[in-house]
């Protein structure tokens, strides 16, 4: 698993990248009450703000970590946005991105580097 400086985690799943937010980020956000996800089959560019997370405190954006196509979103979050707090690294994932080369993941932070960032 890899990480961005914006507290996203990225996990390769065959030729797809699964994206969510870290435990640290979900704790900082507080109780998540609504998640706005992108449409499936949307082409996104790195840096595009494609997810909005509304917590009891405020709205925050999540950016696409790489160029690619959204091939699946976590529909369960529509009825149960609290999954982002309960299981941010698992059942609380946001979307799956089809990218040209999953090898590009290596450019992101590894777990140790991410831990250093948040300490």
């Amino acid at each position, binding site marked *: 698993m890899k990480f961005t400086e914006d507290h996203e985690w990225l996990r390769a799943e065959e030729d797809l990248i699964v994206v969510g937010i870290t435990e640290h980020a979900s704790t900082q956000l*507080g*109780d998540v*009450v*609504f998640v*706005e996800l992108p449409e499936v089959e949307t082409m996104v560019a790195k840096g595009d703000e494609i997810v909005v997370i*509304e917590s*009891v*405190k405020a*709205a925050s954006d999540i950016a696409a970590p790489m160029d690619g196509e959204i091939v699946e979103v976590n529909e369960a979050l*529509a009825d149960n946005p609290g999954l982002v707090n309960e299981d941010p690294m698992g059942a609380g994932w946001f979307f799956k991105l089809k990218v040209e080369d999953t090898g590009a993941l290596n450019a992101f932070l590894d777990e140790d580097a991410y831990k250093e960032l948040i300490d």
Partner: protein
Amino acid sequence: MATETAASLTPTPLLALHESLGARIVPFAGYALPVQYPAGVMKEHLHTRSNAGLFDVSHMGQILLRARSGNAEDAAAALETLVPANYIGLGEGRQRYGFFTNDAGGIEDDLMVANRGDHLLLVVNAACKASDLAHLKTRIGDRVEVTLVEDRALLALQGPKAEAALADVAPGTSKMRFMDSTSFDTDFGTLWVSRSGYTGEDGFEISVMEGAAEPFAGALLANASVEPIGLGARDSLRLEAGLCLYGSDINAATSPAEADLGWAIQKIRRKGGASAGGFPGAERILEELELGSSRRRVGLRPEGRAPMRAGTQLFASETGSEPIGQVTSGAFGPSLGAPVSMAYLPAEQSAPDTRIWAEVRGKRLPARVAPMPFHPHSYKR
């Protein structure tokens, strides 16, 4: 974030307790206050509705008014020149909501006023404390002695288990009714207790000497039904209860009729009443109460799950180009499991069930005007 500004913030007498309970401390109106504890806003909110929540509201201003004549009624009469409520008719041991108005008919602050026999006790908003004091001294200082209480903390205990929890510490308080205000001598010194609050629940606000505040709070928290609650849940609780936040839902440019607060101006202060008018902005305020205002504070229920927060622009249609109003408070309501907002809308679009559109992140989302409170009050009248 809090640590950078901590030096310039005023601590309340309970800051060390909040920190020991794991609170996240934030700056609020110049004070260091807990926004949430480890349980989080959602759980704190629901706990208050089902059990009892303890809030530190020591940042609020406690002000005493004493008539220089020695005749207590003179203090009430003087205050009536600044606030359009009936305080001469307020019985001893009773409390009443009101607001300071300005010459334009707007609201300078909202407050609670209690008749405590030989004096009045005012509780005002933290951010307005200094201006309220100056206003009182300038306008009625010749008739009343104005004293800011600086050696007392203020706590709120709210929720269906509040009565039982407070009775353990201050027997006798359970006999109080909504908006009663009385003193109780306890192991924690003399408490000034009112049966009121800012959550829509039954509950109490308790003024305690600062030196006794921490043991007093500790005694309440020792009760299994009581949990500490931060500012985050305080805001979502008051919003569900349809209660205004000064500076957001009401301000110097909103009139009582626009804010739907006409209920706080008793008949005796209105046209034809025995003590009609005689407060700043009376002409506009009283006329609007009779004829209606062109805009009104309303409740909104978004049709989807996305909260419509303060500042969100409102439109009459999905494609309308000119905004017709604006959200002044908005959040997810944990007890409703849905988002709720307060907003100002033109009178003709303010009837319950009117559909309007809000622009959220560039998209027009539908919402309906809804009656308030969103969550029913459970005051012990």
